[in-house]
């Protein structure tokens, strides 16, 4: 398992976490390459179906990053994201899928360091969990 390189899909909201990811770049904070960012305007735009689709296509982990509570650019989108993801994690667990593969975290526009830390920790988590038990696509 030593050379297992997880594939992680990361949804970032445009205003805080995507800007935080850019901030990490501006500060040249180094981190593993395992994640691919998909930008949405708000974390609340992330439909649980998107998450399930990523898992079904073989993602080893999915992360949703949004603005801190009370800082959402769209007033309360991140609260909705929080509720939806909490429910989705319960559903995943009920189907015997490790909910630790789905993570929701808050990263503000000025938190490049937190972005780096979040990515590093999640990559470590997924590495410890090993490859996704789901067979890729319709293989």
């Amino acid at each position: 398992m030593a050379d297992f390189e997880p594939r992680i899909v990361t949804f970032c909201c445009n205003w805080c976490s995507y800007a935080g990811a850019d901030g990490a770049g501006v500060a040249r904070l180094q981190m593993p390459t395992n994640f691919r960012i998909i930008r949405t305007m708000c974390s609340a735009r992330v439909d649980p179906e998107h998450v399930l689709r990523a898992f079904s296509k073989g993602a080893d982990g999915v992360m949703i990053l949004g603005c801190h509570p009370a800082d959402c650019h769209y007033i309360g989108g991140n609260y909705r994201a929080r509720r939806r993801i909490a429910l989705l994690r319960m559903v995943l667990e009920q189907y015997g899928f490790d909910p630790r593969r789905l993570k929701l975290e808050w990263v503000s526009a000025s938190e490049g360091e937190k972005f780096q830390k979040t990515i590093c920790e999640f990559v470590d988590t997924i590495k410890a969990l090993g490859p996704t038990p789901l067979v890729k696509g319709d293989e």
Partner: protein
Amino acid sequence: MTKSALVIGGGIAGIQASLDLADRDIHVYLVEKDPTIGGKMCRLDKTFPTNDCSACILSPKMADCAGHPNITVMSYSEVVKVDGEAGDFKVTVKKKPRYVKLKECTGCGDCVAKCPTKNIPDQFEYGLTTRKAIYIPHAQAVPRVALIDPNYCKMILNGKCGICEKTCKKGAINYADKEEEEVLEVGSIIAAVGFQLWDAGYATEYGYGRYDNVVTSMEYERMMCASGPDHGHIKCPSNGEAPQKIAFIQCCGSRSEKKNWKKYCSSVCCMYATKQAIITKEHAQVQEDIFFMDIRSYGKEFEAYIKRAQGQYGIIMHRGARVSNVEEDPETKKLTINYTDKDGNGTSAEYDLVVLSIGLNPPEGAEELAKVLGIGLNEYGFCETSVFKPLETTRPGILVSGAFSAPKDIPTTVAESSGASAKAGAYIVDENFEPCAPKQYPAEKDVAGKEPRVGVWVCECGINIGATVDVPSVAAYAGTLPHVVYATKTMYACAQDTLQAISAAIKEHDLNRVVVASCTPRTHEPLFRIACREGGLNQYLFNMANIRDQCSWIHMHEPEAATKKAKDLVRMAIAKACLLEPLEGAKIPVTQKAAVIGGGITGMTTALDIAAQGFEVHLVEREGQLGGQALNFRHKENGVDTLEFVKGLIDKVNSNNLIKVHLNAKVKDIPGFVGNFNLQLEDGTDEPVGAVIFAVGAPAYKPTEYNYGSDAKVMTGLECEQAIADGKFNKKNVAFIQCVGSRNESVGYCSRVCCTTALRNAIQIKLADPTANVTIFHKDIRTYGFREEMYRKASEVGVRFLRYDEEAPLPAYDGNTVTAFDLTLGADVSVPVDCVVLSNGIAPAREEKEELAKMVKVPISKDGFYFEAHQKLRPVDFATEGVYVAGLAHWPKHMDECIAQGSGAASRALTIISKKFLTSEGIVASVNEDYCDGCGVCEGCCEYKAITIVSKDGKLKSNVNAGLCKGCGCCVAACPSGAMEQKGFKNIQIQAEIDACLDYPVGGE
């Protein structure tokens, strides 16, 4: 008839001033003496403290200037005469001959390749490389047009050659070109002519010009730069080898009374040298030493940057070390620096390369320009201004911004330039003002039902992307993907030539989708969207892949994995692009009023500048009177009492019919969005406004140190100032203690103003009583710019300075003496005192700021001040449109800087509220009524009340008000029937990204 404005100088100062005026619908002539705009900033490699690539952040603004319908760029031109008066100037501009027709030349460079006259020193590269007699100034030049140097061209000199004329297929060469004059009628003028570099040839002791391996900081900047002569590979000029040890010598040309040196501090060198050292470390493992007297990191997040340089990058700082001379070993060409180490021992060290941190001089030709404009210069040869009128020259109607008035950094320059444009606009906007008509773009091509034809541009961004990601292979890979009909790499995607190429390729290859893989859409998407529009493509048919900020920069040591990731990101972006649809934004009415929160100097300045252009302002002050902190000040600036100035400002505000002052007022909430906010106060006031400015200031730090409050001997700097002004100060033995509440473990930043305040008080005390013993305990003295004069004067009148270690605790105080370890003497020194003045810093008051921040969703920086949209180029903007920040709410600063920034925020707000309508984003929600059964889930989750459930033909359906919708997409994820969609972020578009990511192996192949 409505007059234009004139901006002289096409550097970042002139560019920002022009853009603000143009966005306020005022026509601008931008006159630049060089063949291209961009000034010094476009020659820089990176910018501090974010290490942003200078070209990357400037290029969009340069392109914006070139493409703006309201800006006429007059490059290679000079102002030679100004007649008339404010509101009605007649300005004669001399256009120098280019010998190339501006409108015909496409910047292809064929002529340059064929020109036989070589080896002419290239001024853009500061002579580090050579050019030909016909040349294009540089790759990002605006306009990107060739010109001929008549001093070298054989055809012009003796009529023999003519090769370029034969080569040019456009027939753009014109050897008979002549100097031309044009008279412009303008209402006001902004002089933004910048600075010139100090001539390092005067630094004979450092051997510049004699020793091969001594270079100036600007030369070094070009050496570091990917687009520079060595493509970013730093080499010793003597042998072309990579240096192992580099020394930076600070204050070269500054802070000295030597002949031809300047007395003032050049304000930016400490930071740029540290930046150069950090960037060099990122290129290679080198030992780097910086020799300086004081490190002047007084700006926003500068102190943290210096700490990072030392801690994270291991750059060695030699404090209090003015290098006396540099010696060269004639054989090895290595350089020896003699200096005093921190223990006071004379020592020497050998280096491969020495970089001289040269200072900033008044711009070339400042005296002639001052004569032409009829404005005054100060004793240092810079434009004369005053603390209370930092943007005004001595002649009404002529404003100034940027380094022409004093050495300063880029964010200060940008804020000033916005400010100057607010003031310049006031001379032009009257009751008969006619705004410029909006720009017309070519008709958009119909893409409905057509197969996607995607064009892909993969940017190298100099070496920012190219050094880590294998850009040619990414571009080649993109070309193999479905629907891609054109794929190429480019040096700078944001440069004018690439933007034009994108527009042209849309026509040439019949593209109906465009993808650019480069930096972040947060800064560059608007620029590429305009390029699409210019090519006749709807701007929403464009998508970006972020392969720099979120790839090459964060995976610098993993080129292979980063290249694979870049390919994945490009594939994902293309997959989404194929499914994009053309969109139109909604036209939203704008409330043409502004709210300014905070009635101090900054807020009042902002309010007055907005009102000066005829718009209503609500000025909200929580205290019972206007004036803020400045009401406590008792000193004079340029001979004017601060208090008198503040009272004058209050009178102006109170007598202005357009400004409604709300005293004792607390903001309850500010709901709404750009153009349509509601200012709600706790007294029940509810006023619609189009823009909001935060000028809430920041309080002085209340000291808990030195028994302040219980020991009668201990006072703050402000209390000292007040006692002096009241004639009540009579202490004999005075100690000033700097950095109380700043530069410590809990407050990491420098409060910027305390050194100057302490020196002003110390000088007053010594002048009143020359027998008084005044000692200043400090880590650094940060009297940047012309404030250095105070440091010199304080020393002259006998103020003593005791420098203690920056890592040491504050000096000890036992009630009678203050003791600290004097770094210069290398011993503990005790000073008996009957008065201790604490230079208490400025506290951020984070909690107060957070309250307001939450109302309009803007971020707070880690130090507790408001966090602007971009530290370098958008210093007064927030990422949230329509909300701005100025003054101490942004960062500690002096009064002149507050005033300039206050005007700057006014200008930015004017770009919004001066228009009756604004066009909203097109990425709003929309309903597919065939699927909608009117359940109302979407209505409940919409924060903006943009969704209502209406009855249509007897059935309940969801209805979206596009003007109110902010495009978050929350309702889309909530919709149980799949009826709701977000334009530009449709489910199938997001799914396409997910699939493109995971249906392929990593890296795609």
